[in-house]
């Protein structure tokens, strides 16, 4: 079974993120980056599936050469090979989905797993577009019934389950108010939610092996995708700073303020 996963490079939420004064973007200096946590879950899930059913895991990232750091991380976790789509500059979700579509057509995986969204733009669109462009089944927000401290999780059992005839996939999805289970036929696109698994650490031997695993370079031009954005971000701004609190004299004053100023009830 061949699985393709994504590894987007995103800002590490632990570093201080500042918007540029002119609102044209964020200040890149001094920032740390990491693999999008949802994608990391996708990589983990793919590794578990490929361990259970034998097969390769191909990891894709789009961006400047900096994304090699995230590709190497996924390779260190255990992915077999990496594809780097070399591109500098902004991309919208449509363009990303188109690029991934071409990579998928080239790699011909049985399954694509990607994060339901990335923690920088929080768009939640690429997986859905990709399934549509490919004409494949899709299952979003994959999760699982077992808890993250269960034995199944400790034994690294995959949450996505192949059907008995190996032609379909059973996916537990996180939906408002609970979980729903659906079955889809392969090939399919699955997007991951947070409770699907706990990603492993890149092991030390893994980090050393990653060095000699191949990273194939592609470009939007080679994939014949027009990446001119149809959607542009015109301005970014920080959320307004919280105002200082005030002290109220007594409970009736509090109720009065809640009612008339905060309009809480």
């Amino acid at each position, binding site marked *: 079974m061949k699985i393709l996963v994504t590894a987007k490079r995103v800002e590490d939420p632990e570093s201080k993120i500042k918007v540029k004064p002119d609102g044209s973007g964020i200040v890149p200096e001094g920032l740390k980056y990491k693999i999008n946590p949802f994608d990391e879950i996708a990589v983990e899930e793919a590794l578990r599936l490929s361990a259970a059913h034998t097969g390769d895991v191909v990891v894709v990232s789009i961006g400047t050469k900096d994304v090699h750091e995230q590709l190497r991380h996924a390779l260190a976790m255990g992915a077999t090979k990496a594809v780097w789509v070399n591109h500098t500059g902004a991309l919208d979700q449509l363009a990303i989905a188109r690029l991934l579509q071409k990579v998928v057509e080239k790699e011909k995986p049985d399954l694509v797993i990607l994060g339901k969204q990335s923690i920088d733009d929080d768009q939640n669109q690429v997986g859905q577009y990709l399934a549509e462009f490919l004409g494949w089944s899709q299952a979003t927000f994959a999760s699982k019934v077992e808890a993250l401290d269960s034995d199944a999780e400790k034994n690294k059992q995959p949450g996505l389950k192949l059907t008995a005839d190996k032609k379909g996939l059973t996916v537990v999805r996180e939906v408002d108010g609970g979980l729903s289970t659906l079955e889809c036929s392969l090939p399919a696109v699955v997007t991951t939610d947070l409770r699907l698994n706990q990603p492993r650490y890149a092991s030390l031997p893994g*980090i050393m092996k990653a060095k000699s695993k191949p990273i194939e370079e592609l470009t939007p031009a080679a994939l014949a995708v027009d990446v001119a954005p149809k959607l542009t971000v015109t301005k970014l701004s920080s959320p307004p700073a919280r105002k200082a609190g005030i002290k109220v004299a007594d409970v009736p004053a509090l109720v009065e303020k809640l009612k008339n100023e905060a309009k809480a009830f």
Partner: protein
Amino acid sequence: MSVGINRYQADLKDLSFVLEQFGFSGIAGQGPFAGWGPDEAQAVLKETYRFAREVLGPLNASGDREGCKLVDGQVVTPKGFKDAWTKLYEAGFKSVSVSPDHGGQGAPQMLYVLVEELLSGANPAFNMYPGLSWGAAELIAECGTEAQRKRYTEKMLNGTWGGTMCLTEPHAGSDVGSAKSKAIKQADGTYAISGTKIFISGGDHDLAKNIIHLVLARVENAPAGTKGLSLFIVPKLKVNADGSEGAPNDVSVASIEHKMGINGSATCVLNFGENGNCRGELVGTVENLGMSHMFKMMNGARIAVGLQGLATASTAYLNALSYAKDRKQGANFKFFKDPSKPRVAILEHPDVRRMLLEMKAVVEGTRALVVKLAAHRDQVLLYQGKDDEKAAYHQGQVDLLTPLVKAYGSEESFRLCAQAIQVYGGAGFLKDWPVEQYTRDAKIYSIYEGTTHIQSMDLVGRKLGQNGGANFQAFMSDVSAFVEKHRAHPTLGKAIESLGTASEALMQVAMAMLGWSQSDKVALVPLNANRTLMMFSQLAVGWLLLDAAVKAGEKAAALPKGHADLPFYEGKQASALWYARNVVPQVESASKLALAEDESPVQISDAAFASVDA
């Protein structure tokens, strides 16, 4: 006891800087380190730090509060330790520098010490278990027979089995040579072991399937003292011919100690052979080499203890710094009596800044000292068999610096952790914050693996004069070469010159030591040994901080104004200048104290110490 939140913090930027300060890129990629480069080092540090914070850090306070228990003769470790042990070995961080022959990654020691800093810093008590297992395995790999290597090392390195070092006995602490444990050779070539060992870290636990004890014992009719000690492999469970765990080997846990700190680490009293059924194998094939074998492990363990000190002090500093940015108290010192002025973060107060800058400087300087030592170990490996002279120089520096790393790293750690409490004020004294535990944990570092005085006597009694004094002289000429090269530095020149004065002061005391040792003032040698070690360490740290500052200045000069890395380089220069102005001059004053030849501690009669009986 539930598992808590992580408090561990490390400044990865400084770790990376120090790697380059001592030429990691030059060492990596060469000879045995062919597979390594700066990118791999960064990836390893990043992932180890993440592991340290996510897995080990949350167990630090809970492990301390819960402690270990002895249940039906077996040690039960705190909640979460077993899971952390499994995850640690899955990720393989413990075998970063282990030779590929034994399933490791063969990384340079420079990287190994920083990985250890991260693991120890997040949870020193936990890290003792894998740390000792690793040390014991490396000893067997180096000193054992081929069969012993096959039988033990791999399992001890991959976490299937644990390991310990058993030296201490009730009457043999610092004086290891008076150990009474006995070994009687059996017809099958094994030895019947009997005796009691105390204070054995990880002497029993529930993390691994078996525990391999390395036990110092005396074979019948062997000479007295350290010369007559042999080292034995004594498993908790006998090992079957196929390598599986067999019947118990008559090793029992009599009790576990109740301690001030590192409470997650079980400190055990072990009885060997109470029923006459305990069997051990001699490490290697020759008896009475126990101490020299044990020293292989002890040299590494002494470095590891200095590292524990560095690691704990570093997170104490970073936590105190965070707190100082947050806690508001008093007005800025310029208007300290004016109640109408705004209350400021305590970081604005000069005395708090002084405490924090001292912590920063000592932490960074200790880190540099440890990594320098590790770099010399790497160079030994690179030059061995190719350039004997260079290899000997590097080995000489390793020998010379080991007692400094152990003693300076541990003494300063406890002092700095206590100072971190001072930065917090009353909050620091509470269990709500991590620094009181750091302080309790840090106290053991200056005691086990040889007390500070044992290190100091190793320095003045052995290391200064080793190779006819060549190692010490080589160190001193490295310092003076640095001074010569940079004495005209526009901003650091004056500070760099002060190293010259300190060097002379240290030399004078070293000469005086030699004189005292051959005179009737011989008591002045032990009386000044700790002082000499401290002077030497301060000179070394002052030098390495200034070396870092020179390099940081060069890096900063290449960056555009406003670059986000500039404050880091500014900080490196601030550490060096503070240390050069406030600590390095203490070397000269200490030399005056030493040369005053005060013998009052040995002159005062026992009765004069106090008028209490007994």
